[in-house]
């Protein structure tokens, strides 16, 4: 099987998965009680709405059609990122609501994820190159912490000591309200100031897990014959580690990195809620509380797309990196 065929097969898998996800999401929100028109009527006008308005609303949300037609409509719209209109925030298209919140979340979690990955991989590689040392045990220990601590709790504690007691950081929010509009430097400074604690609490609990996984994979690889050969050739340890070992360890690490990036999109519901950060996590939480299903369904579907994309990219890179995968099996 050639590389083209491999990519083709993975593409077909990805498409099938996306279709299945859209179907599954449709049913999740079909099962959840209450439909948008009901909720809208309850929220805006009480229970008395004249029949014409009801008909209009039903038509607007496509509820008047038979189930199969509704599903097909949903499907056709979902693949074009059209999830209908949101029920709360001034009835904007769902995709616009999401796009408004997305930058904040990408900023917060993107930063945290990048720091986590860089820190995690470099510490993991370093630990694997000297197994059994104190440094190694420290990395393993921080990995265990990562599995055990809740980032939102770490956030609460940081907020207490650094924010409340020492007054070094703001207690909540994304930017201070008193920043003069147009002052870009002040704005960026303020944003970074607000970001520090949430990013720190996210990184503290996640870099160790990364480091541990990278370390465990590398420790195994470093005992293999080709590493011994590389060392026997007299290659410097740096090259052995980064060119030979890390390349062999790449596939599972790539999957991990890709998945981390895919799940950035959902935001960190709990951490965002502790810091009152106006991101996707808060949006999801609000949407759940107010049964704002169109927004939720949009978020779920987009996350699913991203996860599939992440797996797809990972598979593609596997194929590039490891010829055995595309030729064998």
């Amino acid at each position, binding site marked *: 099987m050639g590389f083209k065929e491999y990519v083709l097969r993975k593409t077909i898998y990805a498409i099938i998965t996306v279709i299945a996800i859209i179907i*599954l999401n449709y049913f999740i929100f079909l099962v959840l*009680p209450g439909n948008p028109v009901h909720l809208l009527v309850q929220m805006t006008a009480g229970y008395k709405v004249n029949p014409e308005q009801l008909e209009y609303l039903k038509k607007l949300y496509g509820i008047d059609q038979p189930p199969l037609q509704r599903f097909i409509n949903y499907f056709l719209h979902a693949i074009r990122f059209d999830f209908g209109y949101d029920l709360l925030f001034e009835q904007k298209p769902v995709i616009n609501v999401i796009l408004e919140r997305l930058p904040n979340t990408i900023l917060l979690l993107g930063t945290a994820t990048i720091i986590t990955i860089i820190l995690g991989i470099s510490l993991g590689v370093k630990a694997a190159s000297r197994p059994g040392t104190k440094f190694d045990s420290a990395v393993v220990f921080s990995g265990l912490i990562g599995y*055990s*601590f809740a980032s939102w709790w770490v956030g609460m504690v940081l907020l207490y000591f650094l924010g409340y007691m020492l007054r070094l950081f703001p207690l909540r929010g994304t930017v201070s309200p008193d920043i003069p509009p147009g002052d870009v430097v002040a704005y960026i400074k303020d944003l970074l100031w607000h970001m520090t604690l949430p990013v720190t609490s996210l990184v503290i609990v996640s870099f160790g897990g990364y480091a541990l996984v990278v370390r465990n994979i590398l420790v195994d690889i470093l005992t293999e014959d080709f590493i011994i050969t590389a060392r026997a050739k007299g290659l410097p340890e740096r090259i052995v580690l980064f060119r030979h070992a890390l390349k062999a360890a790449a596939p599972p690490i790539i999957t991990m990195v890709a998945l981390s990036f895919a799940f950035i999109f*959902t935001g960190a*519901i709990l951490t965002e809620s502790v810091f009152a950060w106006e991101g996707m996590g808060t949006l999801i939480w609000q949407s759940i509380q107010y049964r704002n299903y169109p927004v939720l369904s949009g*978020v779920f579907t987009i996350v*699913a797309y991203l*996860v599939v994309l992440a797996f797809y990219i990972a598979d593609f890179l596997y194929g590039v990196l490891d010829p055995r995968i595309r030729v064998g099996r």
Partner: protein
Amino acid sequence: MSVKTKILLMKLKDFWFEYKRSKSGLIGLGILIFFVSLALAAPLIAPYDPLRDTYLAGAYALPAWAAPPSVPRNMHLESPSYPKPIRIVGDYKEWNVKMLLDYPCKEPPARMIIQITLEYDDEELKSFTSKGYMPWYSIVVVKPDKKEMEVAKAFIETKAVRFDTGLKTGLVEKIFTMPGTYKILVKVGGYGLTFKLVKVTVDIKGKAWGILGTDWQGRDVWSQLVWGTRTALIIGILASVLGVSIGILYGLISGFLGGKVDEVMMRLADVLIAIPKLPLLIALAVILEPNIWLVIVLLGFLGWMGIAKVARSMTLQIKTMQYIEAAYAAGASNARVMIRHILPQLMPYAYANLALSVPDAILVEAGLSFLGLGDPRRITWGKMLHEAQATAALSQGAWWWVIPPGLAIAFLSMSFVLIGHAIDEILNPRLRKL
């Protein structure tokens, strides 16, 4: 003892022999045993109801050991007990109960509650009230500097009169302004009504109390922590058992059947991986009435995919081994091969994952409770943190309410991670590295 149990015992003995050598495994086991004994001994060591026993001390009372002696503690004072209840004939005559309270602190207490227990004839009272007369009580405090202060004067409407400074802000601070001996005088008057005074009790609610202080409603944080241990253990272990069982069976069946079925089953697992777990759980918890059994089932059903994938690839490899072929040659059925020959090979992986999946369940449940989606009738660590966050406990400086549950979550999770790693190392399923 049958041969089978003997073999099992021997295996366990061997396992323990290996396990003993893992230092981190022993630490994990130690922490777990600590938490399990907390959970088992909960009724003995945490006598208060974590949710219903309010105002055991003042709100946000410090842990007793962390407070200097200058912080007021709980005090309890009872009027001299009357061997025979004294009959008071009101008739404009005033009657005093005089009590002496040695108050040692400069700082005022959180609140003072005075209870007056009376007996009177209901019919008699009715005939009086119908004429427009009402019996009354009055409480006067004489401060150490001899200044008198009437803190309460009101009509008597029940036989258990209760006066609480907590109902008026700033009152308790006005009463207790200095250390020294306070006189508390209680007067009851009743326009000729006959009273039996049973007793008067004075309760000072302190600002330092118990092992871990109190929360915003004066409830015992230690009891909450101890009872929360039970919930955390139940949820963590059961959700993990459910998730791992589903994962192993799913992977086993998928890998064993192979071909198209395998393809479809693995696609389905991929689809479920792609659904954001926490948002879905939150949505379901908001809509379905949350209780811990529901949370366990949801966690179990959303947490098996990774395990299934590994179990499948292990099954694929085991399937090609010669002893499987031999089993078939000996006439074994598919079901027998699956259950008797392949499943046991997956078990080491399952055991390690049983321990390793617990932390995830504990953390996710804590997160759900933190958002206020926990079982309302059960205390959990997440719920403690939820209430702490909702009442801005940290801005009251109530670290004893926030730090312990978070550390408990972390240490319990860590114990399972350590145990899981130790088991993993011993049973060392090389097959996993496919």
